[in-house]
C-alpha cells in the first residue's frame, strides 16, 4: 500500500515521459488524475491508521536491498510522517490543478512533478538512512530541473546555487549517516534499529561531530540562518508551482529529519547541542522576519517568511532537548513543531500560488508596480488577505494552533524562547504592509485592468486555505495523530 503511494507517481512520470506526441491537454489531465488518485490512496492510509502501540510503525514494509551494508527497503509511517505524507498529496494535487492551463511543455512538467512527488512521498515514508538519502538527493535533482526548466529571470543561476548548496548539505548528511552506521553495533542503516541502539551515546566527541554533520545537512535544507542564502533566489526565479512545492514540501525534509533521525538516534549529542539549535532557531525567526520586512518583491518576502516559520520549528525541537525540564512542555513543543510543518506547507503553498498569479498576469513581483488591486480583482484580494492572516498566525487558522503550542511548550522548557515572540509581531507588520501596498488605495500601475482569479487558480488555493482553516478550527484529529509520536520522540531524546 505504502509502496504503491510512493511509486505510482514515478510510474506515471515514466509513462508520461515516454509518451511522445501526447496532446498537452491529456498530459495535464493525466497529471491531475494521478495526483487525485494519490490523494484518495493517502486518504485510505489515514483512515486505516491506528496509532501503533509502543511507538512502532504502521503500514510497514521491508524488503532486502543491500544486505552487505545492512540497508533495506524499509518504509512505514507514524504520527510524525503521516501528516507530511498527507500534506505532500494535497500540495501536489493543488499544483496539478493550478497548472491545468500551463502552456510550457506540460507533458515534461507533469512527468517532472510526478517524479518529485514520488521522491517526497518516499522520503517521508523511508525508515532506512540510505533510502532517506536516496529520496533526499533525487528531490534535489528534480527541483533543479523544475527551477532551471520552468523558472524565469536568472533561473539557471538560481538553480545552480540551489543545487550546489543543498547538495553540499546532502553530502554532509551522508557523512553523518556513515558515522552513525559505523558507530552502531552491528553496523546498520535501519532507522528503528539505530534509534533503539542510540549508538553514539557513550562517545561524546564522536557524537558531537556526527550530529554536527547531520545538522549541517538538515539545516541547509530547512534552511536556517546562516545557510538560507540559496532560498530567496531559488524562490524568486522558480515558477509558482515550483516555489509552492519547494517551500511547502521540500523544506519540511530538513525539519522532518530532525525529529525522525537526529533527535531519537543521537539523544546525548542532541541534548548537548540543544542550546545551539535553540539559538539558531531564535535567530532564524527574528532575522527571517526582519529581512522579509525589508523586501520590495512579493515572492522574496514570502521566501523570507519561510525562514522565519521554519525558525519556530527549530526553537521547538531545540527546547525539546533541554531535558532538565518537565517532559510535558517539551512534548507540547514537538507536537507544535510537526503541526507547524503541516500548517506552513499549506499556507505557504497557497501564498506562492497566489504570488504566481501576479507574474502570470503582468510579469512582475515588485510591490511598487501595483496598487489598489482590490478594485479590479476582489476575489484575489480576499484570498490573499486570508492567506496572509493565516500565515501571520491569526487564531482560527492552523498557524495559530502550531505557534501557540510551540511557544507554550518552549517557554515552558526555557524562558529563552520568549526572545522569538517578537517574530510574530514583525510577521504581522510585514504582511499588513505588503497587503496595503498591493491592494489598497487607488488602482495604479500594473494593477489597472488586472483580471481576477480564474477557477483553476481559485480552487487549488481555496482548498489549501480551507484545510488550514479546518485545522485551525478543529485541530484535534491532527493533534491526536501527532501527539503520541511526539511523546515517543521526547521520551527517546531524554534518554
Amino acid at each position: 500500500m505504502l509502496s504503491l503511494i510512493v511509486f505510482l507517481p514515478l510510474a506515471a512520470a515514466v509513462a508520461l515521459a515516454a509518451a511522445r506526441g501526447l496532446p498537452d491537454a491529456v498530459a495535464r489531465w493525466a497529471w491531475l488524475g494521478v495526483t487525485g488518485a494519490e490523494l484518495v490512496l493517502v486518504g485510505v492510509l489515514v483512515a486505516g491508521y491506528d496509532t501503533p502501540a509502543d511507538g512502532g510503525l504502521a503500514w510497514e514494509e521491508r524488503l532486502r536491498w543491500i544486505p552487505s551494508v545492512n540497508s533495506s527497503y524499509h518504509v512505514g509511517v507514524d504520527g510524525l510522517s503521516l501528516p507530511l505524507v498527507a500534506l505532500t498529496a494535497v500540495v501536489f494535487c493543488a499544483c496539478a490543478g493550478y497548472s491545468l492551463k500551463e502552456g510550457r511543455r506540460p507533458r515534461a512538467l507533469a512527468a517532472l512533478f510526478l517524479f518529485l512527488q514520488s521522491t517526497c512521498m518516499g522520503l517521508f515514508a523511508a525508515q532506512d538512512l540510505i533510502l532517506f538519502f536516496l529520496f533526499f538527493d533525487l528531490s534535489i535533482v528534480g527541483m533543479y530541473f523544475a527551477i532551471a526548466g520552468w523558472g524565469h529571470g536568472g533561473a539557471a543561476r538560481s538553480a545552480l546555487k540551489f543545487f550546489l548548496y543543498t547538495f553540499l548539505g546532502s553530502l554532509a548528511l551522508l557523512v553523518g549517516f556513515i558515522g552513525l552506521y559505523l558507530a552502531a553495533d552491528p553496523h546498520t542503516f535501519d532507522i528503528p534499529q539505530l534509534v533503539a541502539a542510540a549508538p553514539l551515546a557513550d562517545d561524546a566527541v564522536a557524537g558531537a561531530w556526527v550530529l554536527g554533520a547531520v545538522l549541517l545537512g538538515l539545516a541547509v535544507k530547512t534552511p536556517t540562518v546562516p545557510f538560507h542564502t540559496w532560498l530567496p533566489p531559488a524562490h524568486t526565479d522558480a515558477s509558482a508551482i515550483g516555489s509552492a512545492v519547494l517551500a511547502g514540501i521540500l523544506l519540511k525534509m530538513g525539519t522532518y529529519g530532525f525529529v525522525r533521525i537526529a533527535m531519537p538516534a543521537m539523544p546525548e549529542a542532541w541534548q548537548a547541542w540543544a542550546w545551539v539549535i535553540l539559538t539558531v532557531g531564535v535567530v532564524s525567526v527574528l532575522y527571517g522576519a526582519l529581512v522579509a520586512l525589508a523586501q520590495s518583491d512579493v515572492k522574496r518576502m514570502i521566501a523570507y517568511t519561510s525562514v522565519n516559520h521554519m525558525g519556530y520549528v527549530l526553537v521547538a525541537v531545540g527546547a525539546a532537548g533541554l531535558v532538565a525540564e518537565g517532559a510535558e512542555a517539551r512534548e507540547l513543543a514537538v507536537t507544535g513543531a510537526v503541526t507547524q510543518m503541516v500548517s506552513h506547507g499549506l499556507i505557504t503553498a497557497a501564498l506562492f500560488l497566489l504570488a504566481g498569479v501576479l507574474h502570470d498576469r503582468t510579469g512582475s513581483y515588485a510591490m511598487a508596480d501595483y496598487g489598489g488591486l482590490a478594485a479590479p480583482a476582489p476575489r484575489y484580494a480576499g484570498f490573499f488577505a486570508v492567506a496572509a492572516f493565516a500565515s501571520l498566525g491569526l487564531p482560527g487558522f492552523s498557524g495559530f494552533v502550531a505557534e501557540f503550542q510551540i511557544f507554550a511548550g518552549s517557554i515552558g522548557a526555557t524562558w529563552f524562547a520568549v526572545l522569538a515572540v517578537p517574530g510574530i509581531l514583525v510577521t504581522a507588520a510585514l504582511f499588513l504592509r505588503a497587503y496595503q501596498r498591493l491592494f489598497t488605495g487607488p488602482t495604479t500601475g500594473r494593477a489597472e485592468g488586472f483580471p481576477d482569479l480564474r477557477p483553476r487558480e481559485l480552487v487549488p488555493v481555496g482548498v489549501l486555505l480551507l484545510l488550514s482553516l479546518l485545522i485551525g478550527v478543529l485541530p484535534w484529529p491532527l493533534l491526536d495523530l501527532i501527539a503520541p509520536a511526539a511523546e515517543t520522540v521526547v521520551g527517546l531524546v531524554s534518554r
Partner: protein
Amino acid sequence: MHKEPLALLPEICLLAGAVATLLAGSFLPRERQWVARLVATAALVAAGVTAALALADPVRTVYGGTFAVDTATGAVRLVVAASTLLVIGLGVDELAGTRRESETYALLLLGALGASVMGSTTDLLVLAIAFLLGSIPLYGLVGMLRSPGAAEAALKTYLLGAFFGIVLLLGATVLYGLGGATAYTALAGGLGGVPVSALAVGLLGVLGGLMFKAGGVPGHFWVPDATQAAGTPAAAFLTTVPKIGALVAAYRLLTVLPPTADWTLLVAVLAAATMTLGNLAAFAQSDVRRLLGWSTVSQVGYLLMPVAVAGRGDEALPALLFYLAGYAVSNLAAFAVVAAVPGRRSLEDQRGLAAGSPWLAGALVISLLSLVGTPPTAVFVGKLSVFTAAWDGGLAWLVVVAAANTVASLFYYLRWIAPAFGRPEEGTGQGRPRRYAAVAAVLAAACVLGLGLAAGTVLPLLDGPLAG
C-alpha cells in the same frame, strides 16, 4: 612451478583475439573490415564468458605464485572485457571504414590484456611486464588520429610512460633487493625488518608507475591532453581500462607491505591531492572531452581511498571493485554520448541536446549524476561503500575531503547538464546522433542504474579473499 594454462583462458582469448584481428585486418579490403571488428568482439565475449565461468574456481595462485585466481581477478577480467566491448560499441561509427580500423581493435585488445594481467598478478616482474603490455598499445591509440594534437599527446604520453616505467622498474628492483624475492607471498615475509627509508623508495617507485597507469597524481599529466586529442573510442578506453588494472594492482601490492612504512598516509595524501587537483582543473574547461579527462583524474582520487585502507577490514576490496565497475560504465556512458554527437565539442555546443535527442540527454544526465554520486546510480553505492571503508580504516578526514570534493565536482558536471536542457538556438542543426554510439550510451546508462539498484546482489559477490 605450477602450470595451469586453463586458469589464464580469458587472457589467452584476448591475446589470440588481438593476433587474429590484426591478421584478419591485414588481408581484408577496407570496406570489409567489419570482419575484424567481429573477431575482436567475439574475443572479448569469449574472455568475458570464460572469466565468468572461472569465478567458480577455487581461490589460488598459479605459475609459481605469480598470478592470482580469485574474486578480484574475476572482477577485473569481467569489467575490462565489458568496458572494452562498450568502447568498441561506441567507436564503431567513428572507426568503420577508416584506414586503421582493425589496428585500433587489435591495440584495444592488447591494452585490455595488459590491464587484465596487471590487476591479476602477484609478482613484481610480471607487474612490470603488464605495465609495458598495457602502455605500448596506449601510445599507439593516442596517436592514431594523426592530427597535430594527437601527435603531441602521444609524445607526451610516451615520454611520461617511459619515465614512469623506469621508475616502476627501479622501485621493483629496490623491493627485490630488500625482500629477496619478487613474488608477493615471499616479499611479505622478506620485508619484515628492512629499513623504512629504503622500503619507502621502493614503494614510491612502484606506486608512481601505477599512478601513471591510473592517471592519478603525480602521473596524471598525460590524461587531459590525450583525452582531448585522441579519437573518442581511444579516449574512452584510456580513461577507463588502464585504471582498473592499476588500482587493483596497487591494492594487491599494499596488502603485503609491512605497516612500518606509513603507506596508508601516503596513499591517502595522494588520493586527496588527486581528487582536489582533478576537480579544480575541471572547473575552467570548456571542451567536454578535456572536462571528462580531468573528471577521470578526480575519480581516481576517490578510487584510491579503499586502496589507502587496503587490508584493514573486509570492506575495502568489495568497495574498490564495485566502484571500479560503476565508474567504468558511468564514464563510458558519458563518452558514448560524446561519440554520438561528435559535432558538439564545447559545453556551449551542448545547447539543445535534450530537445533533439531526449534519450541521449537522459543517458548523459544519468552518467554525469552517477559520476557525482547521486543515488540510485552505481557510483553512489560505490562512493558510499568507499567512504564507509575509509572511515572504518581510520581516515575520517579523507572522507570529509572527498565529500567536499564531490560538491565541488557537481559544479562542472552541472555546467554540462544545464545547457543540454536549454533551448536550442536557431540554425544549429547538428544532424542526427550516430546510431551505434547512441545505443551504447543508452545501454551503458541502463547499466549504471541497474548496477546501482542491484547493488545488493552484486556487492556480496565481490566479497572474497585475495589469493596468495
